[in-house]
């Protein structure tokens, strides 16, 4: 689509079957959809737990923070939260990028940068929780 103002004309010299075969999802749309829902459901209790944790840790000293994470349940729940949250975030931002970035090269670069940053933050968070807990 070089000239977006001109009226579109279809000029594809292939059979209808050939066209149809080129049009399938052919990627991993269903898996993306399911993963987004599963992480969303996981985040319902986990985000409420996070909100309660924030209230309990309000104004906490570092010693109190370490004491909180030293409870195995808290460390495990925080690690579950980090996994579900960053996975859900990656899926959501992927959709946003796919919707609004229309140039292939820019989209690929944006996607890799955003997903790379998400993996980095997820690992940094998880390692921090483990360091506080252990």
């Amino acid at each position, binding site marked *: *689509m070089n000239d977006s103002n001109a009226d579109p004309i279809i000029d594809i010299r292939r059979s209808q079957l050939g066209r149809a075969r080129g049009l399938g999802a052919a990627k991993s749309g269903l898996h993306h959809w399911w993963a987004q*829902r599963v992480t969303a459901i996981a985040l319902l209790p986990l985000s409420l737990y996070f*909100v309660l944790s924030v209230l309990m840790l309000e*104004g*906490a000293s570092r010693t109190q923070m370490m004491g909180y994470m030293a409870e195995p349940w808290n460390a495990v729940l925080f690690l579950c939260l980090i996994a579900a949250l960053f996975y859900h975030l990656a899926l959501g931002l992927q959709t946003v990028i796919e919707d609004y970035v229309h140039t292939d090269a820019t989209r690929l670069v944006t996607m890799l940068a955003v997903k790379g940053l998400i993996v980095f933050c997820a690992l940094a968070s998880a390692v921090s929780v483990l360091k506080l807990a252990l």
Partner: protein
Amino acid sequence: MKDVREALMVGRNTQGKLVRRPISPFMIGSAYKPQLSSMTSIFHRITGVALGLGTILLTLWLVCAAAGDGAFSIIQAVLASWIGLIILFGFTVALFYHFCNGIRHLSWDAGKGFELPDMHKSGRVVFAATLALTVIFWAIGLYIW
């Protein structure tokens, strides 16, 4: 148009004329009147992206706590400053909205609540619940403080 991948990008309008389909974000602008359905939808996306930025703050908070007393006292002071509190307030509004509207989306995924009156009602419930949860959270938070 010569590439089969572009075949989905054209369609016929009500006059039967071949036209290019609009590409996102066509909902914002003259083509589409702002209404409760579109507003709750775009807010879901905006709050999602905002929460994504908020996770950077969450990461910083955890990393500073793991790093040491000096780093942790700095991040706690930043979060307790006026700017920090304004950012945290925005974060809680976004979180509670995305939480409530997310439940609305999940109920649609289960095939429930598609009728227009139901959809409008659930949209208003989401706004009310967001307000209520935010007020409750900050009431408790400021009381503890």
